[in-house]
């Protein structure tokens, strides 16, 4: 470590950023695509019809289906298609877990989810796909890893990120003087400008997303908090989870059956109070029991995760109360998590989130590139070429920054091209993504690094630009058609893919030109050297 506070911070910033940079890049890219998880879902399930049913019709259909299918459930949840997050009627039932004697315990067991057709109350069949949800989940679950491993891994990476942000702010000498400064085409200077300028203008977002990301894992990273109050061990943990999720209105099961009231009538009461289209979801605890409770929840219109809600008696349909009180600590927690997810965001704010997220990915990417650019002059002069560490960072940069977009394009390709009846189809979409990514990570090892950048940029560009073509060939819903019928989900997907593809093409062209210039310069130098000393032959 160097002397001096700022130098130490610069050192800290460099190395904390480097060791977790590639994981963070993956987290930012996949998490940011999650801003449009539902839209990607729709694109990946082109069979799903657009919904036109009324609220009452949807809820009646959901209640009918749930009553036919389940008995003695712990909880039903019904999401009518009243907002962006739920474009189709969706239901879920959760059972009580049975103990060794087959008696229901207080803990939750299996859950089953379905998308329903509100006209027929029958489930809608779609292709097996992880959809946008799986892509979004990768950003914290890392797909192949068990949750307790990925939680710790992402938690530690986020902690490094927070350290890198704070040390980065301290290292940045001229935050205000350079606030608006980006000097392109100046090598290392430009990379540093880009990195620092973008980080400065999105600092509030960057800090929020990292800090709130950490708060998601607070109970994993600090198991002592729970253990000191509940004791340690699996069982105690589950008791805590139950209590954490518990709602005040719930009471002990009566174990005597009672007919459930008509839920659509309760939704109607809520709509009269809140206005049309304001019901987000309906939850029924212990349906069919005399002590059933119905919770009608308002749309998310605040940064908090919790919202206005009405509580009804499930048997009589009587209104019991409004919104339960929340502790300050819980409110803080919910607000941070709500901010991170941004589910409340309307279209403009959603796009602002999306753009900020891309800037975040660019900050990380440019930081990784900067590490290489800074060390390259010295490394290239070295006898025997660059160190293996330097070469490793370079290759990982290409494989991640240019390779991950190729892999994500492969995920979408697989969605359209894999046979519909393939066993484990949903898994294979994700496998395709990671196989392609692995190939992209290995590729730069065998190619000159500059060529690898250019070639992978071209591949990314082609893979993304061809997506609308493949979509048109497999579904018939081409871009012009989507624009004509104002299908903004399909049109938006196509246009975003095209934009990204063009950006990668631009990057590839720019890099090729630079390489040509360098090559010409080198040749000129050689020619001059020969002219100066004709006696020396090569």
């Amino acid at each position, binding site marked *: 470590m160097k002397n001096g506070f700022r130098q130490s911070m610069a050192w800290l910033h460099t190395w904390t950023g480097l060791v977790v940079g590639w994981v963070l890049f993956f987290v930012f890219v996949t998490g940011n695509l999650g801003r449009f998880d539902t839209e990607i879902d729709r694109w990946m399930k082109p069979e799903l019809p657009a919904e036109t049913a009324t609220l009452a019709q949807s809820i009646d259909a959901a209640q009918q289906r749930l009553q036919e299918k389940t008995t003695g459930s712990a909880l039903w949840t019904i999401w009518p298609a009243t907002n962006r997050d739920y474009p189709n009627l969706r239901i879920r039932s959760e059972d009580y877990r049975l103990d060794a004697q087959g008696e229901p315990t207080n803990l939750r067991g299996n859950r089953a989810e379905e998308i329903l057709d509100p006209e027929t109350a029958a489930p809608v069949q779609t292709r097996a796909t992880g959809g946008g949800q799986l892509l979004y989940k990768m950003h914290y679950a890392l797909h192949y890893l068990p949750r307790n491993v990925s939680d710790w891994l992402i938690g530690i990476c986020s902690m490094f990120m927070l350290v890198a942000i704070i040390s980065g702010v301290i290292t940045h000498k001229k935050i*205000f*003087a350079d*606030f*608006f*400064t*980006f*000097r*392109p085409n100046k090598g290392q200077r430009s990379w540093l400008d880009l990195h620092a*300028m*973008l980080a400065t*203008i*999105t600092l*509030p*977002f960057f800090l*929020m997303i990292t800090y709130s990301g950490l708060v998601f894992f607070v109970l994993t990273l600090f198991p002592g908090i729970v253990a000191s109050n509940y004791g340690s061990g699996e069982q105690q943990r589950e008791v805590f989870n139950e209590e954490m999720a518990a709602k005040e209105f719930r009471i002990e099961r009566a174990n005597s059956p009672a007919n459930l009231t008509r839920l659509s009538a309760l939704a109607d009461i809520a709509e009269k109070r809140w206005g049309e289209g304001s019901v987000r979801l309906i939850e029924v605890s212990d349906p069919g029991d005399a002590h059933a409770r119905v919770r009608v929840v308002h749309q998310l*219109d*605040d*940064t*908090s995760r919790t919202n206005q809600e009405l509580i009804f008696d499930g048997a009589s349909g009587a209104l019991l109360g409004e919104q339960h009180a929340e502790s300050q600590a819980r409110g803080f927690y919910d*607000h941070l998590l709500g*901010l991170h997810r*941004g589910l*409340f*965001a309307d279209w*403009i*704010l959603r796009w*602002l*989130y999306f*753009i*900020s997220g891309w*800037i975040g990915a660019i900050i990380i990417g440019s930081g990784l590139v900067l590490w290489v650019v800074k060390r390259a002059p010295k490394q290239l002069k070295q006898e025997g070429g660059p160190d293996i560490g330097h070469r490793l960072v370079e290759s990982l940069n290409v494989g991640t920054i240019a390779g991950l977009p190729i892999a994500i394009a492969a995920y979408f390709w697989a969605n359209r091209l894999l046979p519909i009846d393939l066993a484990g189809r949903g898994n294979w979409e994700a496998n395709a993504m990671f196989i392609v990514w692995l190939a992209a990570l290995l590729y730069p090892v065998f190619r000159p690094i500059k060529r690898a950048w250019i070639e992978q940029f071209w591949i990314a560009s082609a893979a993304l630009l061809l997506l609308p073509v493949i979509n048109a060939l497999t579904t018939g819903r081409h871009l012009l058609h989507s624009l004509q019928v104002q299908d903004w989900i399909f049109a938006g997907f196509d246009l975003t893919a095209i934009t990204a593809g063009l950006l990668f093409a631009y990057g590839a062209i720019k890099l090729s030109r630079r390489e040509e210039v360098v090559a010409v310069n080198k040749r000129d130098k050689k020619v001059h050297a020969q002219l100066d000393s004709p006696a020396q032959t090569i």
Partner: protein
Amino acid sequence: MLISFLLAYFAFTLLSLTKNRHYQQLWPGGQLSESTEYILQTLGWVGLSGSSVYLLYQKGIGIGLTEWCGVLSAAALLLVLQFSYAPRTVAAIALLEWGRSSSNSDRKQ
């Protein structure tokens, strides 16, 4: 949101002109007088506060603050790109502001 964005954008434009580097980009060899710099800076900060107050008033604290952060990033990004790739497009807007603020300072004297 648009009003807030415009306010933030103009405020950033004024503030950027108080930075010598960007001032020189638009008027090479020019030098900002201390009083003008003071005025630009004040107007800039007033504009930024205005854009936040407007959003907070419109959308409430939670959403207002969130949107404001997004608006600030977008406004600053646009300005940075202009300075890097098309500084003249800043000048056009800046000139307008400049005329207004310098006539203000004349009146004061």
